[in-house]
């Protein structure tokens, strides 16, 4: 089997599996306990926190361990709304294509009387700074933007957005960086980001654990309350094995970030090259260009208008190739992807969207096998179509 769905979830590093197993066995005590085993488990969680902070260029006090991307997004959005909604204002700005975990929170706030401005996403897959500037109001409390879009891989201009928002100190800047942490360089403080969500399983860590980075000085209202863990921001016994595994996965990913980025970009260019030779015959369209500054090299999106994404996906699977039709969190949805419609794609093309997402472990040979399979499968489907 060749697995090209790293953006949905990535296979954990072998070393991470070992770390999780060892930690479960040897450091099972509650990190909040006063006895020695508990204190040692607490030191391990703290060491993991410091390691994560160092790798991401922030302070250990700015790291909150959560159960994953969905919880991080919820804590960021609800945390700001509950803390400041009553006093500073009830206006929130989000981009038109956010992950369902952001969208649903925003929807909920709208029901509770918040006003939401959805930023249009232009054909280039990006929000515009001018649109944000235009949308900002006296009562705006939050701007939330997804760094790398999980479906088409477009990279939003965080530094520019952050620079704009520096002029609005009452507006918090949240970034859903689930598809970029461990893959793209990201400097939270240089970009003026207040809150940043990440999820371990996207960078080959364990599932069920994630990060919310909270800039020092930002006060949030917690969602889970009780034992006061995570500086009161997230009660609940820390998931020591998952936290240790995440710290390890982040180290392994960030230590090779530059090389992996270049390698994956080369793979993507190779696939693009192989497919574009047959592009017309197959009726293929590439959703994004190859510029690694504008599109994450880890994600490639293409469509075969007229065909159904699901059919392509299953046909490839019969050849042992795993790809995805769209963001895993909405792939059971029959309607065309709003993301693709938002960037101006036709309904027909949107229904035929295929997402291929890579990892540094893929080889050029893997890409050749993938390209051969895509060409074979789509040629066959096009024939059957007639």
């Amino acid at each position, binding site marked *: 089997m060749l697995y090209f769905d790293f953006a949905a979830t990535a296979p954990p590093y072998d070393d991470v599996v070992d770390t999780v197993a*060892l930690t479960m066995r040897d450091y099972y005590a509650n990190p909040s306990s006063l006895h020695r085993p508990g*204190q040692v488990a607490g030191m391990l969680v703290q*060491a993991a926190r410091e390691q994560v902070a160092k790798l991401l260029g922030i302070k250990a006090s700015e790291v909150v361990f959560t159960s994953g991307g969905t919880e991080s997004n919820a804590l960021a959005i609800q945390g700001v709304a509950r803390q400041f909604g009553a006093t500073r204002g009830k206006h929130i700005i989000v981009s038109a294509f956010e992950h369902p975990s952001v969208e649903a929170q925003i929807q909920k706030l709208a029901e509770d009387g918040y006003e939401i401005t959805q930023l249009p996403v232009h054909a280039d897959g990006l929000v515009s700074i001018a649109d944000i500037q235009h949308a900002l109001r006296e009562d705006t409390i939050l701007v939330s933007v997804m760094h790398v879009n999980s479906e088409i891989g477009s990279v939003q201009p965080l530094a520019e957005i952050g620079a704009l928002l520096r002029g609005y100190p009452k507006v918090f800047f949240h970034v859903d960086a689930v598809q970029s942490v461990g893959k793209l360089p990201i400097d939270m403080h240089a970009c003026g980001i207040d809150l940043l969500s990440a999820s371990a399983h996207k960078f080959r860590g364990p599932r069920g654990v994630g990060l919310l980075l909270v800039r020092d000085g930002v006060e949030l209202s917690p969602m889970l309350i009780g034992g006061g863990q995570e500086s009161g921001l997230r009660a609940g016994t820390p998931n020591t094995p998952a936290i240790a595994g995440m710290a390890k996965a982040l180290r392994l990913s960030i230590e090779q970030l530059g090389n992996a980025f270049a390698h994956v970009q080369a793979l993507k260019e190779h696939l693009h090259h192989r497919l574009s030779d047959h592009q017309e015959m197959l009726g293929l369209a590439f959703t994004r260009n190859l510029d690694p500054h504008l599109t994450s090299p880890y994600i490639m999106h293409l469509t075969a208008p007229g065909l159904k994404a699901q059919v392509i996906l299953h046909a490839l699977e019969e050849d042992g190739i795993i790809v995805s039709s769209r963001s895993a969190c909405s792939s059971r949805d029959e309607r065309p992807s709003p993301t693709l419609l938002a960037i101006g794609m036709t309904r027909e093309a949107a229904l035929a969207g295929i997402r291929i997402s890579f990892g540094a472990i893929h080889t050029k040979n893997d890409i050749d096998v993938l390209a051969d399979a895509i060409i074979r499968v789509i040629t066959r489907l096009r024939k059957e179509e007639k």
Partner: protein
Amino acid sequence: MKPDAILLRLGELTLKGRNRHRFEQQVLSQIQRVLKPYAAITYKRAFGRMYIDLNDEPFEPIAAKLKNVFGIHSFSPVYTCTCELQSIQEKAVAIMLACIDRPTRFKVDAKRADKEFPYDSLQLRYHVGGYVLQHVDLLSVDLHHPERILTVEVREDRTYLFVETIEGLRGFPAGSNGKAVVMLSGGIDSPVAAWMSLRQGLRIEAIHFHSYPYTSKQAQDKVISLGNQLTEYVRELNLHMIDFTEIQLYLKQNGQENLLVTLMRRAMMRIAERIVRETNSGAIVTGESLGQVASQTLPGITASSENIQVPILRPVMMMDKQEIIDLARRIGTFDISIQPYEDCCTLFVPKSPATNPNLKVLRAIERQLIDLDRLIEKAVQTKEVLTLPRRVEENFSELL
């Protein structure tokens, strides 16, 4: 702009005569020890001064290390260039422009060791100063009260220039004034007293009294962390962990409640005196500060040190609490000291400890404490000696 060398000034104020050479050697060996990771650097002596040639090693982390070495009065980042006047002039301008605080009044101090150099010192000053004036805005020459002195030294091979001076810790090189036993609690004051002892050139043996299991292992780890922090300034130090539990319980059961703290302090001092003799030290150092707690009144201090035959040094005795805290922050012990673990002095503390303990009463009580000598002897015998630095934390580097 990256410095090419560092000029070191070693305790010029404190030293004279024949001691100077020994002093310099001691500081130098400490510098070589802390800079060991920077393999490319070389040391040389010129113009009667010590230079470190960086040979492309980074200045900032090396400067950070030098700031923790006792016996360095100050040091300067040095820039070098060839001995042509033009390149000296250009280097001088670049240096002045790179000054973060952009001084407005300066002067040039120039020397030439190379008498072949076509300009004498006076001419060199004139040519360099004039050129700098032309090329740096808002700058004027002030020969009497300059904010900065740009020093130019022309040697056979290279010319050395420097303008910045970074304060060192001063003090005496490690161990140049003998050895003392420091009573190290987990608090804010005693680590500062220990550090001041180190700065004054004392080697130290630290002793810590614990009352495990009444106090926690974390309290002991905290003291180890404090000792570790002190080894930023000294190669290593011994930490004597003394089990004070039995003595403390014995005093609590047989003493007088309001005198408990004084009785404990007297016992601790006797143990410290034993360690002084055992380790060939010359004094006891404490973190006592006048008036800070009930036992640190003049009568309290008198009572706790009665009968002690070695000198007791109390470096922070006259310091204001805020001064102590500031220093604790500077030396990196403050954040460790404020961790919440109890030490043995805060256990069984009476509601109203005597601020003016009566010596006669104390002596009378101690005469009744027939087991005390034996317990003190036992505490000394069963002490555990740790050589620091050692890691308190578990090592998770492989796991993570």
